[in-house]
């Protein structure tokens, strides 16, 4: 049990500090595993708890600071809008509802997943590029300015193609400047225009919309994408964004769900389809043999971790939102901007800085042209589509 609690603490750290991914922490700790008081099973539970907690907490920097990672990138946009309306807490709450909902749903439907997931894996795998191509065409055609939309999509896509065809850095490190550039910095730069302080963040609100449909959509998208090779929560987020309800509150619930279920399923896939589907799952595979009893332990562990993480996320976000309301927003944005640039330089060097600048330039285009900012997700979509066509 102590490993699970330590995993939750570590997940809080990786979730709150932009740029630190559970994979990075797990690989770092694995190299010192002989010094740690964990056996392989305990270490697996530690990493699993850390990764799951991370999916809850990582929405706090994404919504309050505009500092996303690949899986939370699309939350920056509605999240920031909520923040500027004094509803930052509500945005975090919605993602937490989604996260907790999908874990409960996965636990309840696990017997079904035993049969559904292997069939899903073999059935959809060859056609996923076609599905993404359809999404891409829909994204462009649904814009009023189609030529500009096409340009923004292709620019982000080519950016991804160049970066991913011969990655100079490990992907978890590379994604930090990519998504901070495409989604984070443009949002922050935009926030600098005119606004000097944040409105009082509401701690008391009331909404009467039932979230279960949004949880279901997030669960399904995260399930499909989490289990397919080369795909993940970020692609599932695009699907939910394009085909889900256009209501921002539902979208945030779905996004919270997508992120968590993709992380959970990527590990359960070790048993369900005998393949790891994330960096954390690869490490767990090397530590323990995943049998049916261990899968059950992981499912119950996910219930425990998500329950605790949900409460921790809301309490931390509540304190953070009150703190943000009291200080100059312009100063906070400037500090975060400098912090993100310095962190990029520290983690990824001059190459990462170049990626950050390029990403920011591409990320500013949809704002300037009045397009939806999800075109930035072409950075991952186009390489997969080209891969499906045998061009990458």
């Amino acid at each position, binding site marked *: 049990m102590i490993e699970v609690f330590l995993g939750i603490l570590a997940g809080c750290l990786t979730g709150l500090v932009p740029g630190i991914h559970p994979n990075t922490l797990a690989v770092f700790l694995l190299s010192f595993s002989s010094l740690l008081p964990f056996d*392989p099973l305990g270490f697996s539970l530690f990493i699993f708890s850390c990764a799951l907690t991370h999916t809850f907490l990582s929405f706090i920097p994404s919504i309050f600071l505009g500092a996303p990672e690949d899986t939370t990138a699309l939350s920056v946009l509605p999240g920031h809008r909520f923040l500027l309306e004094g509803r930052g807490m509500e945005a975090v709450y919605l993602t937490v509802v989604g996260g907790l909902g999908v874990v409960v749903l996965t636990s309840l439907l696990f017997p079904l997943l035993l049969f559904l997931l292997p069939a899903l894996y073999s059935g959809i795998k060859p056609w996923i590029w076609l599905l993404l191509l359809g999404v891409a065409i829909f994204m462009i055609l649904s814009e009023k300015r189609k030529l500009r939309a096409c340009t923004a999509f292709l620019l982000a896509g080519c950016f991804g193609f160049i970066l991913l065809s011969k990655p100079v850095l490990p992907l978890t490190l590379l994604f930090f400047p990519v998504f901070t550039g495409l989604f984070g910095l443009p949002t922050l730069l935009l926030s600098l225009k005119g606004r000097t302080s944040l409105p009082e963040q509401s701690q008391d609100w*009331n909404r009467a919309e039932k979230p279960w449909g949004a949880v279901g959509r997030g669960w399904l998208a995260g399930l499909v994408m989490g289990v397919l090779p080369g795909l993940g929560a970020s692609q599932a987020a695009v699907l939910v964004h394009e085909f889900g309800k256009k209501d921002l509150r539902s979208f945030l*619930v779905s996004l919270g769900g997508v992120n968590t279920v993709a992380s959970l399923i990527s590990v359960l896939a070790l048993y369900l389809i005998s393949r790891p589907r994330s960096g954390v799952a690869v490490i767990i595979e*090397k530590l323990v*043999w995943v049998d049916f009893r261990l899968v059950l332990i992981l499912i*119950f562990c996910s219930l*425990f*971790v998500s329950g605790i993480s949900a409460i921790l996320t809301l309490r931390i976000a509540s304190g953070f939102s009150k703190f943000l309301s009291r200080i100059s927003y312009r100063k906070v944005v400037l500090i975060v901007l400098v912090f993100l640039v310095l962190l990029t330089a520290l983690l990824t060097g001059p190459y990462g800085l170049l990626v950050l600048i390029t990403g920011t330039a591409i990320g500013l285009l949809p704002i300037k042209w009045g397009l939806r900012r999800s075109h930035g997700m072409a950075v991952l979509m186009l390489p997969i589509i080209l891969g499906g066509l045998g061009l990458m």
Partner: protein
Amino acid sequence: MEIRGCSLGLLNMDRFELLCLVVAGIGILGMLLVGWGYENAVKVGEIKDEMVGVWVKVCGNLSGRYSGENWFGELRDGTGKIRVVAFGLNGIRPGPACIQGVVESYKGELEIIMKRYD
């Protein structure tokens, strides 16, 4: 907790926090029940080619000897036998034991590179 009145459907904030605690409680109870006495050990007969590179724990009867600092031997249980190699691991004795290590393939046969000896 100062977040009040926040609701989605029938859930207000206090109820949501209670729900989180109930979910966490079910989780911890399930972990304790399912995990009671669990050792994540496999039988020798269950070790297959697709487990190459995977860390396993196996219990059985260990036989073999040291050659210099390295141990070469085999482990048998009721389901089969497998070759066991340990590099620079001290204190290994023949007899009943639980070992942990990584499954590898050497000259077409599976073996365990022992990392821990209990």
